[in-house]
């Protein structure tokens, strides 16, 4: 019997997810032993036409990382959906837009402005990327940038979700183990739509720091604090830590080394909008009752949308800035 096919693809992403998969060390050999890697551009050469030529549902599982930013991303999402039995939204980008999703706060023109005209960019001829460009050899094409970033499940049906930026390697290894067991007929697939490789609580559950009743009278950025106490809750020390509103599963990696959680594992189970949860929680414990005094505390969050929705903007209720959304077809 031939080995089942495995694919991994990167859309709008940084490549960190691929590295996280490689970080499972020798476990990657189990992958190779049990699967036929049919398509994995980061690891081996492959052409889209090869995938297009495959039979529908011929790939058992595709780990899809990255969000949908360009027409090319969308095409591959739809293509891989059609060719795969199991499509996994892998990593924060595919699930909720992640850092690239923050671009949803700006319309396309502003994004280009920033990328091609900022003071640090050398672009004397004010060149901009074109969807199609005539050269002596013929027409060169580039996939156009879409109005806003979408998550994988906003484009195609997704079977499982693996959160994290990137997903923790120990979690990936565990998922791989389950997958191999399933292939061997030793285990059942989890129910469709399940979130894999994460806990059911929030980061605080795994955080070793001591916590108390919370009252926030000042919020600072980490560089503004003279010294950080190594044992107490970071939020209580005035840092905007997203841990209370972020799904567990990372072993509280950042807070345990003194950096506030930035929320990469996404919302806790059952939560509709991660940013709103963090927003309401922080606002509730602000130690002020007068509008001006409240604002004084809240001014410690110079970029609220970016702070609360750092990873989940594209998957939030509002998804994007109104101007950016207006360009959506």
């Amino acid at each position, binding site marked *: 019997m031939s080995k089942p096919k495995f694919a991994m693809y990167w859309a709008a992403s940084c490549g960190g997810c691929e590295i996280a998969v490689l970080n499972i060390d020798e476990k990657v050999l189990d992958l190779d032993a049990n699967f036929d890697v049919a398509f994995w551009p980061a690891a081996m050469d492959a052409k889209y036409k090869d995938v297009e030529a495959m039979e529908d549902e011929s790939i058992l599982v595709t780990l899809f990382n990255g969000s949908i930013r360009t027409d090319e991303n969308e095409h591959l999402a739809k293509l891989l959906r059609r060719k795969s039995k199991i499509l996994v939204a892998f990593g924060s980008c595919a699930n909720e837009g992640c850092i690239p999703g923050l671009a949803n706060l700006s319309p396309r023109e502003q994004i280009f402005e920033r990328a091609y005209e900022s003071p640090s960019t050398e672009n004397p001829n004010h060149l901009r990327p074109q969807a199609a460009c005539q050269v002596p050899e013929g027409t060169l094409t580039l996939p156009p940038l879409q109005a806003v970033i979408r998550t994988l499940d906003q484009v195609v049906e997704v079977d499982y979700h693996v959160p994290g930026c990137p997903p923790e390697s120990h979690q990936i290894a565990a998922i791989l183990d389950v997958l191999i067991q399933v292939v061997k007929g030793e285990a059942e697939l989890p129910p469709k739509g399940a979130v894999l490789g994460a806990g*059911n*609580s*929030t*980061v*605080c*559950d795994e*955080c070793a720091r001591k*916590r*108390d*009743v*919370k*009252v926030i009278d000042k919020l600072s950025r980490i560089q503004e604090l003279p010294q950080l106490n190594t044992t107490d*809750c970071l*939020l209580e020390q005035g840092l905007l830590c997203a*841990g*209370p*509103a972020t799904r*567990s599963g990372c072993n509280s990696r950042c807070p345990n080394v003194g950096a506030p959680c930035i929320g990469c594992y996404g*919302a*806790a*189970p*059952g*939560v*509709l909008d991660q940013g709103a*949860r*963090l927003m*309401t*929680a922080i606002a*509730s*414990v602000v130690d002020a009752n007068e509008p001006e005094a409240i604002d004084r505390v809240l001014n410690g969050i110079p970029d609220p949308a970016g702070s609360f929705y750092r990873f989940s903007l594209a998957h939030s209720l509002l998804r994007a800035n109104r101007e950016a959304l207006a360009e959506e077809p």
Partner: protein
Amino acid sequence: MTDNSKPESQERIGVYVCHCGTNIAGVVDVESVARFAAEDLKDRGVVLARDYTFMCSVAGQELIEQDIHEQQLTRVVVAACSPHLHEKTFRGVCERSGVNPYLSEMASIREHVAWVHTDKAAATAKAKAIVSGTVERVLKNDPLEAIRVPIDAQTLVVGGGIAGIQAALEVAEAGYEVVLVEREASLGGHMAQFDKTFPTLDCAACILTPKMAAAGSHPKIHLFTWSEVEKVEGFVGNYTVTVKKKPRYVDEDVCTGCGICVEKCPVLVVDDKFEAGIGYRKAIYWPFAQAVPNLPVLDPDTCTYYVGGKGGCKACEKFCPTVPNSIKFDQKEERVTLRVGNIVLATGWDLFDARRIPQYGYGRLPNVFTNLELERMCNAAGPTGGKVVMRDGKSTPETVGIVHCVGSRDRTYNRHCSAICCMQSLKTAHLVKERTGAEVYNFYIDIRTPGKEYDEFYQRVLDDGIHFVRGKVAEITDIPFDPAEASRNGAGTLYVQVEDTLAGMQRRIPVDMVVLSAGLEPRRDSAEVGKTFGIACSSNGWFIEKHAKMDPIATMTEGVFIAGCAAGPKDIPASVSQGSAAAARVLNYIRQGELALEPVRASVLAEQCSGCRLCNGLCPFNAISFDAARKVTEINAALCQGCGTCVAACPAGAIQGTGFSNAQLFAQIEGLLRDFSRVPEVV
């Protein structure tokens, strides 16, 4: 997240649209709303929708009962008036018919639609949206059970004025234990300071002292005077209160109240409390002659044992005839912890400080008095032996001005009407006239005499020949306008500058003496007291009733009731009635033995709670606690009042709220917005 796990298609919802006569049907096309529910909401589980003249009528209720039985309805939506009116009615219908009462919902299309809109099409469209929202909501309702708590039969009454005494006596007479806590050294409250009571002119002491004595000697009433409630924990039926007993420096168990100590004490000080500052008391003193309990109290701020640093005269101790000696210079504060089931707050009021209106001269001009000073002056046992005299203690005034609404009905001080000042001023006018024969002027904004026999008393005072000037007094001054005015009136005359709005002119009325009818204000510490007992104050400081009209005795906190002026100015009959009413409410709870509470409560999903403790400081009722061992937060359902603030604050979404769950509210939002495109355009 909208919870789709429930098999909605299996639910059978009945929608009932009430005409309320023409109240609703006159503006909302009720048939169209019912048709909308039956057809457009069919896929949402609506199996029948009816419109009916009066849903709350017996026939209307029977209609629902019948449908529940014949059509096997599992959930009910009644589109009618505000749920505050008939939610209980329709819950009752469901309960009688075997459907959990919490699986019914009301859609308010009368107060929120028919009565406030005129455009029929727009009103009908809005009614449909509301029904759609309510149907979505009811689909997410959970069957709930009322929460039952046992009721401890012992009752705490705070405040020993007439309202508190009345409440305590009524509960005690019914055979239950009462703890009566009074901040001052004696029962009696403000009423004990009054000379006569309007409109009958009964002697206040004659009608109050028997009640004080009865409360003081009742075997079921445990009296704590010179004491304050410091801490309240628990919830209805099960409160634990800590009472702080301030040191009296007199041994309550030994002292016989003979009064030799008071007689021998050489220190004389102005009595700011009972005598309103115009009489004197000793450093060891009785609050007043008829005090209950009949025990003196020693004031360490003036007693030479404590001040002066010379060890004091100790005359009281030397002359005390009891064995052992009743004087206890080293007595300390004590704390007593008690368990009670219900609490009646009858904490009363404070007198408006007339010095806050400097242009009226109180505190600067000797012959400007407050009404309370006049009460003491009129009292035969008071500092002047019942004589109305000027500040020199001798002269009888020939003209007296009485200023109404001092500090009341005035944007700068209090907007409220103090309710009793008109009658009290009329009483003062009558007494002054009777005792001095003086010309008496009343300066009033409006005369308000709505009580029984009150206006008759006003007529009587008019017949006494007392002058009434309608106008708000601008100024009371001893400075004449010019030498002519000075020579007409002589030194020491007070001029009342007022716009006489009936005569349409400015007047300066020279008088010898002015009485300011200072208003009633909330107790200065009412916000703190409210916090201790977990009840709310309005921004000006009066306690807030559960409902100003329909439930004026209860508060938002179950088991805490308010009586008397703590919730707003009242006269004596109203205070007594409220004392009785509070007792009736308490007795009702005691006799029930246990109490059913609305099951609107928050609870923590322990497996989802990360123990971040963010919610821990959010509950003013202390229902949220942290289990340090399990590292999870817990909510005490009996303490929880169901506000839902923690539900909305939990960053993990780990707190659920019954009755107002996220699923219910999300669904309602979806339902309300479902057909928004269909709103007809209103021009």
